[in-house]
């Protein structure tokens, strides 16, 4: 157990004292909470968490360590990581390193021993806010100064984080001979690429700044819009590319940020949720079949379904807060979901969406 002090401070001045883990230092970011009870390695490495201080609500985080297989990108993406308890050792046959070691190697601070429930209740009632985790700036006298520095940080609204979150160079994926698609990487999770491949698709993953011409020139049979961090409304150039792709009539499938960008491309509006959806237990009803899936979620922004244009129809509804979790275009092979059918972490209930996309691509190629 670490006994080195650390604190988490919120922009409204509330302080949560705890113990330092990972790298010493100070990290700023939007403080968000995740209610998944396992799957922290996927969360740590999910590019959509870039710029965020992630608080896990589970009591013990790090129990099975981090392994060589379950990362969703090649590095830890969160700004800082918090829990009630990070065990000093792990126990699992696949585990390779502790949370502490992984955070330390990545230069990212962590904090445990804090009353995470009090923190979540605070965020739940006041909304997600900026904050800091620090092992350095602990003095009472420096509190106001530290708060001042939090307030200097950019807010999540308006943050164009997706442009730098994904690959900087195109790369290919999937089995040879399979139908080819283009995936735009706003911070794509590895498991999305694996699920696309598993459903018989191949193709190229492009950086977020790819042009429509480049995509259209590639001879792809469909387009995939990935997840990613930040505010979709801050990415007009990405929206413009998608608008051009829509004109091709080819199948398009978006997930999370991809869903929001597709919505914007169709003329809908997006807005920031009070504290977002982050966890693996959100019930989503498929409005077409009536069935309910337990879904993996990670988003702070959402599409306002009332602003979807004619010809676009909401298809998935979050049963907790009745927000839009998916839509599609009538009579066209274009659809998107706000949640994460690739799971990682989370339930595999919605894998069929990949199958559907693969079917549409195959039909068109």
């Amino acid at each position, binding site marked *: *157990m670490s006994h080195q002090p650390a604190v988490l401070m919120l922009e409204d001045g509330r302080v949560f004292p705890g113990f330092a883990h990972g790298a010493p230092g100070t990290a700023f970011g939007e403080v968000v*909470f995740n*209610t*998944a*009870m*396992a*799957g922290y*390695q*996927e969360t740590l490495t999910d590019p959509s968490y870039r710029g965020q201080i992630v608080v896990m*609500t*589970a*009591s*013990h985080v790090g*129990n*099975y360590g981090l*392994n060589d*297989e*379950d990362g969703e990108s090649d590095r830890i993406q969160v700004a800082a990581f918090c829990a*009630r*308890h990070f*065990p*000093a*050792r*792990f*126990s*699992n*046959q*696949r585990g390779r390193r502790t949370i502490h070691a992984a955070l330390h190697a990545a230069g990212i601070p962590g904090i445990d021993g804090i*009353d*995470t*429930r*009090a923190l*979540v*209740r605070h965020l*739940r009632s006041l909304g997600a806010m900026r904050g800091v985790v620090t092992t350095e700036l602990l003095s009472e006298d420096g509190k106001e100064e530290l708060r001042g520095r939090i307030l200097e940080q950019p807010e999540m609204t308006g943050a164009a984080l997706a442009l730098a979150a994904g690959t900087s160079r195109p790369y290919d994926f999937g089995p040879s001979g399979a139908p080819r698609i283009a995936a735009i990487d706003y911070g794509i999770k590895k498991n999305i690429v694996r699920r696309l491949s598993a459903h018989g698709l191949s193709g190229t993953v492009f950086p977020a700044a790819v042009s429509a011409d480049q995509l259209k020139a590639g001879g792809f049979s469909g387009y995939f819009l990935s997840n990613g961090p930040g505010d979709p409304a801050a990415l007009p150039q990405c929206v413009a590319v998608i608008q051009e792709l829509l004109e091709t009539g080819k199948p398009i499938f978006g997930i999370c940020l991809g869903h929001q960008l597709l919505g914007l491309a169709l003329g809908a509006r997006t807005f920031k949720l009070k504290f977002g959806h982050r*966890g*693996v*237990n*959100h*019930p989503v*009803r498929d409005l077409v079949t*009536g*069935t*309910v*899936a*337990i879904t993996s979620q990670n988003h702070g922004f959402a599409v306002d379904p009332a602003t979807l244009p004619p010809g676009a129809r909401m298809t998935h509804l979050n*049963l*907790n807060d009745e927000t839009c979790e998916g839509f599609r275009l009538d009579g066209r092979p274009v659809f998107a979901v706000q949640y994460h059918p690739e*799971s*990682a*972490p*989370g*339930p*595999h209930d919605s894998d069929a969406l990949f199958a559907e996309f693969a079917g549409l691509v195959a039909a068109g190629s």
Partner: protein
Amino acid sequence: MPKRSDLKTILVLGSGPIVIGQACEFDYSGTQACRVLRREGYRVVLVNSNPATIMTDPEFADATYVEPLELETVSRVIERERPDALLPTVGGQTALNLAIALEEAGILKRLGVELLGASAASVRLGEDRLLFKEAMVKAGLSVLRSGLARSLEDARRIAQPFGFPVIVRPSFTLGGTGGGIAFNAEDFEGIVKRGRELSPVHEVLVEESALGWKEFELEVMRDAADTCVIVCSIENVDPMGVHTGDSITVAPQMTLSDVEYQAMRDDAKTVIRTVGVATGGSNIQFAVHPGTGRRVVIEMNPRVSRSSALASKATGFPIAKIAALLAIGYRLDELPNDITKKTPASFEPSLDYVVVKIPRFNFEKFPSATSVLGVQMKSVGEVMALGRTFHEAFGKALRSLENGQTGWLPQPALVPAWPSVPMPRAELLRVPRPDRIFHVMNALRAGATPEDVHDISAIDRWFLDRFAEVVEMERTLRDLAKAGLGAEPSPSETATVRRAKRLGFSDADLSRLLNEPEEVVRQRRQEAGVDPVFSQVDTCAAEFPSSTPYLYSCFETEDDAPPSGKETIIVLGSGPNRIGQGLEFDYCCVHAAKALSEAGYESIMVNCNPETVSTDYDTSDRLYFEPLTFEDVLAVVRKEKPHGVLVQFGGQTPLKLAHPLQRAGVRILGTPPEAIDTAEDRERFGALLRKLDLAAPPWSTARDVSEGVKEARRIGFPLLVRPSYVLGGRAMRIVYEESELEKVLAEALEAFPGRPVLIDQFLEDAFELDVDALGDGTSIVIAGIMQHIEEAGIHSGDSYAVIPPYRKVPREALGAVRAATKKLGEALGVTGLMNVQFAIRDGNVFVLEVNPRASRTVPFVSKATGVPLARLAARLCLGESLESIGLTGEPVASGFSIKAPVFPFRKFEGTDTLLGPEMRSTGEVMGRDRSFGAAFQKAALGAGIRLPLTGTAFLSVHDGDKPALVPVARELSHLGFALTASLGTARSLKAAGLPVDVTFKVNEGRPNVVDRMINGEIQLVVNTPLGRDSFFDELAIRRTALERDIPCLTTLSAAAAAVEAIKESASASGPSVHPLQEALP
């Protein structure tokens, strides 16, 4: 889909008496199901033979049949009530087996009854291990390799490729009865043989061992639209090899990555779909190889289970309630989350706390049975605790057990420290026994590493690391004490103590480690602001606001649910089930809570038993799921500042808190604690009896053996010898001669060191009366008088009892009993419930004991008389008078109601079934009918004893019983029974002119009585103990009877009652059934 409108009447089957493997969790689930089905407008018909259940209170069903749960009786109920559907999934394995029997007998089809929740095919698939495995393999899931054997040769052939150890499980038995792990060929043969005998289909599964693998359970729910949710994941701290009911378990699972967990979740969905559970809950067990991660499906229960009760309490997701609603057609997304009320039930709870369950054992009651745990469940109860960390929850669970432990630090008297243990150390860690966890801790204290302990015990290192952290904290605290505590707590002391409390250390632990009295430790930490706060079990890790006040304590920073401002009263629950303290007390607590709410108070329940109705958050206005220790109860009191506390409903557990609470300034409502003391303290009680001019058997006390011998000579034999302050007759013995006395005295002195031994004259051939009464502080009303059917000498909890008294009780004696009860109650100032036990010999009345609190018989008397005693008692505690609650005269019971005990002997190999003054029954059933005989027959049948109507009766009684045996034998002969008897007994029967032949006793030659029993030549045994010489003979008879379901009566009065019942059944045309809501015809 909305609920079904084509159904009008739904039959719900309960689980019957409390037995090992099936306890009050099914009262919890059944009560929930009945409540929601009625709320949805259905007519509910309930059958359950257990009178101590809340579900059999008349308000929970439209027609409540307290009748035996067996084919013929339930068929009668179905014919009478013509239900449209049967819900078999909330009454445990008993209900499920019965539903299948009804289906197989064609009764459901003939009378047009639909099975809800599970089809007969799916039940069979879930229960038949081989079919299940085949189906799993077909669905692509991995299972342990195995084969089904109907003979020893089969079994050997199957086991050959696996190597030892090998698991043997009999098909279709409750809680794995008769199963075992074989480590060599010899064990193997024995276990296979016994398993085949116990299996109703004489079949065992021989299986590859997963001993030492990690064990998990998932609680799955599915609705008609095929939406599946995992309500809870549970990981066993004890690895595979120990029945999950006997394992320490933790929720949520701790050591699987999301990848591994999601694969298991996928498997669970495949299982529930493959088995074909259309709607409802299932429990699915998995084993995972710790080295390779290989995952296999072990088994599934296509119904609400013990684990699902635990999962419901652990998560706040009410599985039974939701299962009942799904069964009538609702979908999960149409039902609200019971806790948040705003989000839907189609979700998976997220926990920001940890839940630990620890089983409670009662091996001291069965000294000849081995305490090694295996695949057959042996625990009698369990506790659950919640904390923000594993350590915190575990520490709280340890001090909830009511076994003398007060937290992390073991009591040296109960768990010897490492250097002084008699057995090799590794053995204590490797072989699972109830106290293994304390040895694990001791090993770590002695310097073993978690790796060492893991290598021996196979307990996952993650858990051992947590225990090691606790041990490290113990050292830190000791160092703190060594350095000396200042006058005021220093900041570093406070920080350390706060960390210790967050690791689940009790104040009692801190007291021992810091060398300060517990009170001082508490004061210092409170001064420094180290106080618990209360968090909500909210299903969602605080993501959404929740209004249901289901709370647990932790040492965090923020309280979730401040007091509402209404006037509150606390009911202290009864803690874990154990023999002598079970469901009956929970029943009383539930009624007390209801009475408080009805009287306009906010009722607050404090309890730590996850199986119960009292810990359903719907039962009280606020539920604190907390250990029943002074520290934990005081924390609730400090927060709620209640008007008062009720301690008389939860049995012994809360009573022991009465004085400390009173000293802390808490108002105890009802009978004052001083009166309770007077009744418990022999000297004061003796003085009271003298003052009231009431007789008691001559008695004395002794502090050592020689004093005991002296006193015994003065009083005269036979004697009843027991330690003081016992529950359920622990270490209580009847002594006939001086030669046995010294040993018994020594044992009793040892059982409770420092306490005197009580020596009473034992009134041989007396019979006992049990009286329940209510008082309002000034006067007393008798609620019911029960007569024990067995003679004095058998614990009241183990005796058949009948209300009203049926024979042999002179009117004058009854009058004297009533008068004595009133005198005693008035003198003690009883406010609420009281129970008095009397012995009557030759018309003389003796007071045996007085308990100014709820007794085990309260629910039975309530069912027999229709008067809700516990609820009325709570009102009396609130200050109402007997007159204002409308109870001015003794209620009249219609017909006869008979209570029959149920014993766990089958679970404890080699245990003698002979009854005595130490209570060993786990549960009870009730038989109710117009005549004594019919009621007795029902009670026996409910307890699983099918009295034969024809056949051969074997009679062997001691000399004193021989005259009285004659009329019993004559009646049996009239009824057409052939009589056979031991030599001496045969001689006396022949002398009375009865036709009887002789059967050898075991040591007399062959074929002997046991041979004839095994050959199926004897259908009824009457065998009263003859003394020490024939002890082993009789033990063999009793064990054989138990194993072969041959009724074996060990007292003559029980034999006479049984004969009366046989006579009644022989003349009746099948069972008669009567709902509680109607008077007996």
